[in-house]
C-alpha cells in the first residue's frame, strides 16, 4: 500500500544536534561570561528532561501534577546517597535511581485512579510537602536542611568536573530523552494517553485499561524526573531541600504550558524560554524595577512568570509550539489566505 502518512521532515535533526554540540565552542568564542551561559544551559537541559516527562503526564494524559519538584528531589537524593554513601557506581545509579523514582510515581499514581483535575493537583502538591519533610527528618542520610555535598559524576573512569563536561553529559541525555519522548508520544501509548484525557469512554471501548495506563503515565513521568534528578545532583555538586520548593513545581507547569501542552517539542521550547528568561533577562531589569518599587529578589521573577502565563493562556493557548505551527502554515500558504489559522 502507498505510504500516505506525511512523515515529518527529519533532516534538520542532525544539523540541530551538531549545533547543540558546537554551541559551547561558539559561546566561548563570543563571550567572556560563557561559563555562566553554560551553567544556565545545563539547568535548562535538566528541566527539559523533566518537562518531557511532565508533558507526557500532564499534557498528554491530563493528570495535573504539582509535585514534580518532589520527584526531582527524590531522584537527586537517591542518587547522592547511593553513590556517596553506599558506593554504587554513577553509571549504575543513572539506571537505578530513575527506576526508584518511577516506582514512587507509581505510588502517587494510585489517587489518580479515583480523582482528577484540580484535586489531583492538590494531592500531588501534598506529596511534595511530605517528601520535603521526610528528607529533612532523615538526618543521618541527608543531613537535614543543611544540604548535601555530592561528588562529581564518574563515567568510564573519567571524572566529569567542568561546566563544559557537564554540558556534554546533560545534552547527550537531553537528546536521548527527546527522542524517547517523541517515540512514546507518537506510539500506541501516546495515543492511549490522549484518549484518556479527552474521552475516557472512547478509550475504554477501544480496549485501553484506564488504571493501567494512568499508572504507566506516572511511572514514565517518574523515570524522566528521576533522570533529571540524578543529573541535577551530580552536576550541581550541592543539593538541599530549598532547591525543590513547591514554587519550582509550579514553574514546571508554567514551562509546559508556555511551550504548548501535549507536544514534546513544546516542553523543550518552554523550558528553554523560561530558564533563559529567568537567568538572562530578569537580572537585567531587576535593578530598575527595584528602584521603582520596594521589592524582594524573588518577587520580580514570580511577577514576570505569572504575567507570561496569563498572557499565554489568553492569547496563545497552544503555546510556543502552536505559534510555530501557525507560522509554518502561514508561510506555506503565504500569498493566499494568510489569515489561515491552525485547526
Amino acid at each position: 500500500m502507498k505510504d500516505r502518512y506525511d512523515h515529518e521532515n527529519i533532516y534538520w535533526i542532525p544539523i540541530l544536534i551538531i549545533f547543540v554540540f558546537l554551541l559551547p565552542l561558539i559561546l566561548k568564542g563570543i563571550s567572556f561570561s560563557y561559563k555562566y551561559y553554560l551553567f544556565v544551559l545545563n539547568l535548562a537541559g535538566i528541566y527539559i528532561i523533566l518537562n518531557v516527562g511532565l508533558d507526557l503526564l500532564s499534557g498528554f494524559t491530563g493528570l495535573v501534577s504539582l509535585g514534580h519538584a518532589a520527584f526531582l528531589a527524590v531522584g537527586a537524593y537517591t542518587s547522592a546517597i547511593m553513590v556517596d554513601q553506599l558506593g554504587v557506581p554513577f553509571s549504575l545509579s543513572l539506571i537505578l535511581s530513575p527506576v526508584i523514582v518511577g516506582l514512587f510515581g507509581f505510588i502517587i499514581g494510585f489517587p489518580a485512579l479515583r480523582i482528577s483535575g484540580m484535586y489531583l493537583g492538590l494531592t500531588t502538591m501534598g506529596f511534595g510537602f511530605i517528601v520535603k519533610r521526610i528528607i529533612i527528618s532523615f538526618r543521618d542520610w541527608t543531613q537535614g536542611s543543611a544540604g548535601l555535598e555530592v561528588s562529581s559524576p564518574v563515567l568510564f573512569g573519567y571524572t566529569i568536573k567542568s561546566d563544559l563536561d557537564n554540558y556534554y553529559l546533560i545534552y547527550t541525555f537531553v537528546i536521548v530523552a527527546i527522542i524517547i519522548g517523541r517515540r512514546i508520544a507518537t506510539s500506541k501509548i501516546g495515543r492511549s494517553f490522549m484518549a484518556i484525557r479527552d474521552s475516557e469512554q472512547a478509550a475504554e471501548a477501544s480496549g485501553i485499561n484506564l488504571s493501567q495506563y494512568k499508572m504507566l503515565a506516572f511511572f514514565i513521568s517518574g523515570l524522566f524526573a528521576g533522570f533529571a534528578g540524578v543529573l541535577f545532583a551530580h552536576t550541581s555538586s550541592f543539593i538541599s531541600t530549598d532547591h525543590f520548593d513547591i514554587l519550582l513545581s509550579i514553574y514546571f507547569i508554567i514551562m509546559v504550558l508556555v511551550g504548548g501542552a501535549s507536544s514534546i517539542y513544546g516542553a523543550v521550547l518552554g523550558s528553554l524560554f523560561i530558564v533563559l528568561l529567568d537567568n538572562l533577562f530578569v537580572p537585567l531589569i531587576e535593578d530598575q524595577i527595584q528602584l521603582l518599587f520596594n521589592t524582594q529578589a524573588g518577587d520580580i521573577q514570580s511577577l514576570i512568570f505569572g504575567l507570561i502565563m496569563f498572557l499565554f493562556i489568553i492569547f496563545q493557548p497552544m503555546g510556543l509550539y502552536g505559534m510555530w505551527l501557525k507560522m509554518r502554515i502561514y508561510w506555506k500558504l503565504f500569498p493566499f489566505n494568510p489569515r489561515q489559522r491552525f485547526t
Partner: protein
Amino acid sequence: MPDLIIDNLTMRFSGLVALDEVSFSVKNNEIFSLIGPNGSGKTTLFNCINGFNKPQNGKIYFNGDNLLGKKAHRIIHSGISRTFQNVQNIPFMTILDNILLGANSRIDALDTLKRCVSRDQRKTEESMALEIMDFLGMANYEQKFMMGQPFAIQKLAEIARALVSKPKLILLDEPAAGMNDQETREIANIIRDIRDELGVTVLLVEHDMNLVMSISDRICVLESGKILALGKPNVVKDDPKVIESYLGEPLDA
C-alpha cells in the same frame, strides 16, 4: 446459531428500572435494530453489552463467552466494538491516529517496542487504518485534525475506529443522528457493506425509521425497558402496540 444471546437482563438505577427482563438473540451476520422512544433503555442495553453498566440480573453470551464478568476494556478482545451516540473523538489528534486508537487491541507490547526502533511498524499500523478508511470512502482525510471536521466525517471516523479492531459484532448507536438525507443514504449503504463485505454482525440503535426499515433483518422495539415487539420490519411496522407507543398513526388513517 445465535451469535449474541441476551437472557433475562435486568438493570436498575436505584429505583428506575431501565431494562426489565429483556431476552433476545442476534444471529450471526444479521442487521438487528433496536428502536423505541427516548429513555426506553436502548443505550443502557449497549452499555451492558459493552461493560460500562453492570446489570443486576441476567446473562449476556457472545459466541459462548459470558460477557458480564468482563471489564469494559476487555470486551473488545471478545470481538465487540461500538460507537457512541454523541461522538467521542480525540480532537487534537489526526483522523488517522484517532482510527489507530481502535487498533490498540491488535498492537501488542512487542509491536510497540519495535515501533521505537524501526519505521516499518508504523507502516503496518497505518495500513490497518488506511484499509478501513478506503472502505468507508474517507480517503484523503487521514492527515487532517479531528477538530473542526464536519459532523459526518466525525461519525464516519468513529465507525472506522470501531471497525479497525476487526470485530465480529459492531454496536452502532444512532449512526445517522444529525445527518441529512444524502448522508443517511450513504450510512445505510455503509452498514450493508459492513455486513456483506466485512462479515460483521450489526446491532443498531436508530431513530430514522426509513433507514431502520430498509436495512434491518429484524427489529426489536423497546418501551420502558420491556420488549414490545420483535420480528421482521414489515411485521413490526404494522403491530398496533408499536404504532400506539412509538410510530404513531399514519397520516391517512
